[in-house]
């Protein structure tokens, strides 16, 4: 392999790193925003990402059923993104209401354990949806089923797209085509993802800087009680923070589904940890930090492949996480909240 070939491979890996980094960054934003306002690690955030992917899957299949995917793919993709992120946002807000709000006054660890419970719940719920649905629609009254077999089949087919233990595959909407630059093959789908992610993140950052909500979020992150005394509706701010963070995670979920094709109920765990690592790396509570952290982690992973066999990629992420937490918990850009001992 000559030098030119190696450069191409290296550039390819860089591109991979940036693509993957975009996903991490999108999900990391949710972690960091929630941590900022609640000082809480939302362990279930990775599963919100997964829920977004499934809702998107459901949507794209229904759109295919009615023929929209074939006639207007761009619209189909946009709709899928929208439903995926909005659906995830709703789920995120619901989780906050049920599992975190009652623990507002409790200790951090209690919220963490509750978050673990929420994470397990979401994964299992998605896994069990078809099983539960089958049990429900097969209910018999007096020995006879309530619904006709065709109705049951139709319901099962639709519900089947909402979950289940088996791996599901997104239809291949994104093309495999690309262009070649100096021996480097760049696919259009990669460009699309990197661009969309970057645009959304810049928009978010601007919104947080400029809008009233953004200011309120920062106020709550600084000092919740004082913010409340100043007339800020803390609950509302927190809900909206969860909404935005979860929407971003859901969007990332749909993108991952479209790009990597496969989704499964456990797909949120590892990306969740990596996104959390990115958030910590960039400085937990710090929004630009989360974005930078995401790209840095993505690049660090692919660079590690130059030295280690590719299978150690995940180990690298965990090692980075541990090292950062131990040696520089405030991260690259510094933490927005101060570090305190339990």
């Amino acid at each position, binding site marked *: 392999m000559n030098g030119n070939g190696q450069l191409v491979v290296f550039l390819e890996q860089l591109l991979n790193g940036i693509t993957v980094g975009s996903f991490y960054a999108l999900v990391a934003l949710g972690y960091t925003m929630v941590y900022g306002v609640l000082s809480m690690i939302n362990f279930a955030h990775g599963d919100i990402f997964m829920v977004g992917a499934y809702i998107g899957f459901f949507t794209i299949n229904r759109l295919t059923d009615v023929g929209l995917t074939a006639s207007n793919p761009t619209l189909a993709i946009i709709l899928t993104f929208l439903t995926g992120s909005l659906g995830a946002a709703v789920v995120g807000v619901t989780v906050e209401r049920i599992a975190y709000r009652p623990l507002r006054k409790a200790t951090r660890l209690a919220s*963490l354990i509750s978050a673990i419970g929420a994470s397990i719940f979401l994964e299992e719920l998605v896994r069990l949806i078809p099983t539960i649905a089958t049990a429900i629609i097969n209910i018999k009254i007096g020995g006879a089923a309530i619904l006709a077999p065709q109705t049951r089949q139709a319901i099962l087919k639709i519900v089947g797209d909402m979950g289940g233990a088996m791996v599901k595959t997104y239809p291949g909407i994104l093309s495999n085509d690309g262009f070649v630059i100096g021996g480097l093959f760049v696919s259009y789908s990669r460009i699309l993802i990197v661009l969309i992610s970057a645009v959304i993140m810049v928009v978010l950052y601007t919104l947080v800087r400029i809008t009233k909500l953004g200011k309120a979020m920062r106020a709550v992150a600084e000092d919740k009680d004082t913010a409340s005394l100043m007339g800020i509706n803390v609950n509302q701010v927190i809900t909206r923070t969860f909404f935005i963070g979860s929407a971003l995670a859901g969007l990332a979920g749909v993108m991952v589904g479209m790009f990597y094709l496969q989704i499964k109920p456990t797909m949120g765990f590892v990306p969740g940890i990596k996104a959390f690592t990115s958030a910590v790396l960039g400085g937990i509570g710090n929004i630009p930090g989360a974005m930078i952290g995401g790209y840095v982690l993505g690049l660090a992973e692919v660079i590690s492949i130059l030295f280690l066999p590719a299978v150690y990629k995940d180990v690298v992420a965990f090692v980075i996480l541990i090292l950062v937490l131990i040696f520089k918990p405030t991260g690259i850009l510094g933490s927005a909240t101060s570090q305190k001992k339990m």
Partner: protein
Amino acid sequence: MKKLTLLISNKKVLTGFLILAGIFLVCFPMLDFPQKALWVRIIGYAGLYILLGMGLLIHVGLAGMLDLGFAAFYAIGAYTYTFLASTHFNLHVSFWLAMPFAGLVAALAGVLICFPVLRLRGDYLAIVTLGFGEIVRLLALNLTTVTNGSQGIIYIDKPVLFGIQFTEGYHFYYLIFILILLFVFLMNRLVKSHIGRAWMAMREDEDVAQMSGINTTSYKLLAFALGAFMGGLGGAIFASWQGSIFPDNFNLMVSINVLCLIILGGLGNIYGVIIGAIGLIALPDILRGLSDYRMIIFGILLIVMMIVRPQGFLPRRPPKLETQAVGLVKTPLQKKKKGDKK
């Protein structure tokens, strides 16, 4: 609920109940009934989890450190034993030497991981231990020359005592039973010793304890090493009982299972661990029809427990002590702190 707790607190009732339970458990494998082998296996495995639970209890309840990666010690113990007593490296050290050695190796790992994280805050600490647990599993999966990776290691030696090879389930059942008795006995002694008093002082108020001259670092390390030791022992027993081990035997779910066990049972308390083990390990196997829903019930239970009763089902009197130490429930002192971002 109160009546039940009071009843159990009555020493005479408790002792009587324990003796009856003890006799039942000892005689249980001697009787002949359908599917005996399966039942012995179920109760035996519950017993193994009780051993693990006691180890984690030391970390969480005594050292006050929320450990989300206990499976790491389980894994280290199992693989160490396997390297010493199987066809893998063709070493066949006796179980009675290899098992405690495996425990010691795990204890050493415990000290090594504990050292850098001593000063970490509760939730950060939890994530670091989780990272460590995953790193151990990933290393087991990818260091294929040493561990055989995903293909696992089979033909692990069984213990031999007085010429009898432990090939049947009830052999391990009794081994685990005796070990549990041994450790309950040792723990009771330990808690009453000066080491135990130091631990309790640290739990109450670490700053005061330090000022009274207690080297909190050493005591925390000791507790961590002890808990890890038990995890390692459990791993060795598991490896020889199952006869084969795979990296997947030591995944995050194992850590979370053991954690759920001790939280639900009540963090103070060996008996809580037993209740937890029966509830979480034995019951699902017993209620076979519901086993599909076991995890989702866990998840819901975790959330509900944190909101309603963070001190667990069978808290030791006074009820909030251990959970305060770990930081699940706030002390009056904590509640009063100003500018507290939780």
